[in-house]
């Protein structure tokens, strides 16, 4: 099983969710209240301007599903701010 952690701006969250649903994963988890620093600089979140709020979206699924998801999201992350981290994980059940 692979775990893909995507960190993207809140304004793009809806688009990302749509992609994830299109690929058809078994589940995902969204963390709110995320800020940080990356290639696009420090996130500039203030109470009034939502630009600069981030979310972390975690998807755990089989390798091929995750690979398909990565290919779908990649061009998106070329354009918008965000990163993806991939690691090994086991689903316990």
């Amino acid at each position, binding site marked *: 099983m692979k775990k893909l952690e995507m960190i993207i*701006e809140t*304004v793009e969250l809806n688009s990302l969710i749509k992609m994830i649903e299109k690929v058809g994963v078994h589940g995902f988890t969204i963390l709110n209240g995320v800020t940080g620093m990356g290639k696009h600089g420090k996130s500039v979140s203030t109470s009034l*301007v939502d*630009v600069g709020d981030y979310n972390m979206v975690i998807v755990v699924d089989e390798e091929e599903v995750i690979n398909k998801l990565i290919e779908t999201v990649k061009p998106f992350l070329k354009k918008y701010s965000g990163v993806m981290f991939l690691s090994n994980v086991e689903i316990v059940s």
Partner: protein
Amino acid sequence: MNEIILNGFSNLNTPAILFFLLGFIASVIRSDIKIPDSIVKILSIYLMISIGYKGGYEIYHNGISSDLFKSVLISFLLGFLSTLIVFFIVYKLLKKDSVNAGAIAAHYGSVSVVTFITAISFLEKIGVEYKGYIVGMLALMESPAILIALILVRLFDKKTINFDPSAFKEIIKEALFNGSIVLLFGSLIIGFINGAKGFNLISPFFVTPFQGVLTLFLLEMGMIAGKRIEEFKKVGAKLGSLAVLFPIVNGIFGVSISTFFGLDIGTSTLFGVLTASSSYIAAPAAVRLALPEANPTFYITMSLAITFPFNIILGIPLYFSYANLLQKFLG
């Protein structure tokens, strides 16, 4: 000219403006007053409901003015022209790329609710009348500029930009059904329908404490502006000066057009304020989505940290004084 300066200074000695300055200073000396996000959001919803409802009640009270249709026309005209002016100054004179020019133009063509509300308070304090339906114009002027700016970018930058059509659809929808538009128009209509009975019912919450709520909100606006002054150097002297020039040009322009169309001093002043003000809620969100390549430091800092303070401190009395002069001059 004495009058202008005098008004400017009398406007400075209000709780709202002084708390704005306090917030600004607190933020610059890194004092840790933190107004939670959720509070800022509800204060802004409160202010919009209050201003919309009062506008609707005003119309109920005084009837729909014959100036209404004229004003709708003026709104679109001013929004369209001010977006165009700002775009060409940034694109042609400053030689910035069309994407950043469009992003900035979208902000200056659109409007700032809180600047407008501060202007209303200013007029009420000095006892100048205005038309209640102008709140509707505030709502009308929020979105079109954003669409116009995007079209300008598309026209001047055919190669690099390829609009994601689904994003564009999203933007159009947002332009029409934006939260603040719905809230302003909705409250306006409800205020009109409810009449005096409804007004008496909710005015202890939505009207009487209004000035105090505005004061608290401006404390936060001051802190937000103060946090951004470090970024002034990133914005640069040219864009920085434009952030003062734009409101003056647009404000005078807005007052002039509406005076020539025969509107009264109060309403003309408010049209001046609307044209002079720049958006910092609707526009940044839309621009971030539609023009991700534009630099947010430019448009947010200009709009929030320069134009907004300029307008509420000096701009409003300036546009009012100009409306006065012009009215006297013309008739």
